[in-house]
């Protein structure tokens, strides 16, 4: 038996009257000031949200609504009610949440999401990879690339070296394409798109002009990116983490600002450092396997990083996602010795 005073708001207007509510034997009785009485079975009422410091409102079948004066009043004998409120009042749970939240976040974003993204990529059909590559290339071409100024004889030389490498690696010549472009944005650089398009900038060609074997090593590194589907994995990773962030932080006010930027950037860096090592390994392995020297790759890295200070801007973009150059040169040299 419960008894509580409160206000009864009439259905469909803002009028209200004071009254008393009785709850006994599965029956709700509301007695108004003018002694009019309303009786309703317990299962026909609708309870509002139970939340700390607020009365839980009781909506009657006719649309009128009873709000107890006592903010801590809760209607008894309905199962499952107030579970959330109990959780919020549980001091142990609240305190442990301070530590559990960051821990769970770490698990979700650094363990669950990356592994899901990696396995999703292997399921993508080839046509998607092709379309992705083409469209990205179109955009990059429009925004950052200009026609090459490398002289045709040198282009022919490099193309011969390229065909030679493809033959040795037994790779599809339809798929893998090499392109030369001038680009102020990328500086001395090479990059690969998921459908097999590999781009080498004029500056890189100039820098490695006297070391064709080093250029070969760079090309192998880029082929490694394509063979391991790295661009697709990065895209999947960023899609998955963006969506996960949107879901988890859709309504967690205040947390989003703190975590959003930082988390996704760190994750991507981690991801691409692994990828660079993987592509390095591909290049080193194939250099040795086809009778070249793994040290060629070290030469390429040394040459590319030689006058970094003069091209700080172009290089900081590239280097930020690449492992320390020194370490990589070291690894290339050790790779050779290990053989």
């Amino acid at each position, binding site marked *: 038996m419960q008894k509580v005073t409160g206000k009864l708001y009439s259905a469909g207007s803002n*009028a*209200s009257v004071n009254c008393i509510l009785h709850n006994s034997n599965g029956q709700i009785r509301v007695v108004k000031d003018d002694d009019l009485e309303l009786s309703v079975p317990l299962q026909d009422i609708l309870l509002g949200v139970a939340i700390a*410091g*607020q009365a839980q409102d009781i909506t009657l079948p006719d649309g009128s609504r009873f709000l107890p004066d006592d903010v801590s009043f809760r209607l008894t004998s309905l199962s499952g009610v107030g579970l*959330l409120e109990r959780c*919020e009042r549980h001091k142990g*749970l609240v305190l442990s949440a301070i530590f559990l939240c960051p821990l769970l976040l770490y698990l979700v974003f650094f363990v669950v999401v990356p592994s899901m993204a990696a396995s999703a990529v292997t399921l993508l059909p080839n046509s998607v990879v092709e379309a992705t590559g083409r469209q990205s290339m179109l955009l990059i071409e429009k925004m950052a690339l200009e026609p090459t100024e490398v002289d045709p004889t040198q282009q022919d030389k490099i193309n011969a070296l390229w065909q030679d490498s493809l033959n040795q690696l037994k790779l599809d010549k339809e798929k893998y394409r090499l392109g030369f472009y001038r680009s102020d944005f990328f500086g001395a650089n090479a990059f690969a798109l998921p459908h097999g398009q590999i781009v080498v900038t004029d500056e890189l060609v100039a820098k490695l002009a006297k070391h064709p074997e080093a250029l070969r090593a760079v090309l192998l590194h880029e082929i490694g990116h394509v063979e391991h589907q790295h661009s697709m994995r990065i895209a999947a990773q960023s899609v998955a983490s963006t969506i996960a962030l949107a879901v988890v932080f859709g*309504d967690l006010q205040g947390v989003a600002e703190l975590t959003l930027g930082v988390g996704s950037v760190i994750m991507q860096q981690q991801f691409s450092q692994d990828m660079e090592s993987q592509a390095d390994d591909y290049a080193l392995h194939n250099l040795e396997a086809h009778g070249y020297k793994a040290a060629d790759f070290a030469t390429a890295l040394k040459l590319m990083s030689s006058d970094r200070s003069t091209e700080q801007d172009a290089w900081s973009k590239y280097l930020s996602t690449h492992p320390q150059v020194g370490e990589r040169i070291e690894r290339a040299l050790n790779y050779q010795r290990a053989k």
Partner: protein
Amino acid sequence: MDLESKEVVETTGSSTHTREVRFTGDARSYFSIWLVNILFTIATLGIYSAWATVRNKQYFFGHTQIDGHRFDYLATPQQILKGRLLALACFALYVVSSSYFPLVGIVLLVAWCIALPWVINQGLRFSLRMTRYRNVQFSFKGQYKDTLINFVLLPILSVFTLYLLLPWALKRIDAYIHNNIYYGDKKLTTHLSTKEYYLIAFVCFCMAVGLGILAGIAAFVIGISDNLLETSQLIGVGILFMQFLVVIIVASAYKAMVRNHIFENSTFEGVAEFESNLAPIDYVLLNVTNTLAIVCSLGLAFPWAKVRKAKMLAAATVVHLNPDADEVINMQQAQQSSFAEEAANVFDVDISLT
């Protein structure tokens, strides 16, 4: 939408009513609700966020009282979850296509711009419909065409006038939103003055310039006197933080002044009039200290900051109720809303009514 500033009506009683708005929540109880919301949301991979939203909103709605009657937030977790799933599907479509097919992404972006006024309308409609005071719901009756003009075309136009038209455009937006709000069958009427908006904009502009000069001098002095700061990164962070503070200061001052102006010029015909005495300097200090507290506590001070803000906004608000007002009739069907409204609500077109 900021509920702390929600409007009100009173019909019963016989004497003239001047009512202050009270906020009865406290940082301690909100802290547990907030933290449990976060924990459960992460643990359920976001599904609980729908429940979290309801508890969050209801906490602030239910603790805001006028004349001893509280506000209610009516949306159910199921409604929010449904909408959120649809919105998520759209968002996923956009993210996937823009990462894998950049060209399709651009097309979708254009489509989004066209849909934006509709989304804003639906979002406003939902949040007002889900707001109830004394068993009567609010509603919003804006049209696509007007939203397109006020929210998209005029702001773009103002860019081409070197932002000289911007205060006028902002006034149009505020006037448009408020003049389409209904409480039951009573319409809110708001008369805003363009002159006032230009005055406010001028004050804010002067503040921004003044603070910018001050920040520049401070950075210069620190840079000279402290050689430890020669690492450009640290200076970069410092400058970024100062810019951030300047934005908070100017935005707070703007909000406080505009809020006062809007409240003083809004009435629910024959039902209620409003008054807002929010001193811009108080509001600026509140927001600056709130931000510092949140940053220094790694986010843990967020509930305290939010409750503190709600208290200040409530304390600055006065409602004059007309004792002779007729009964206000609820025009909405209980908790009904359209699926489009629910979905649009998720894009969080958060148009503050402060």
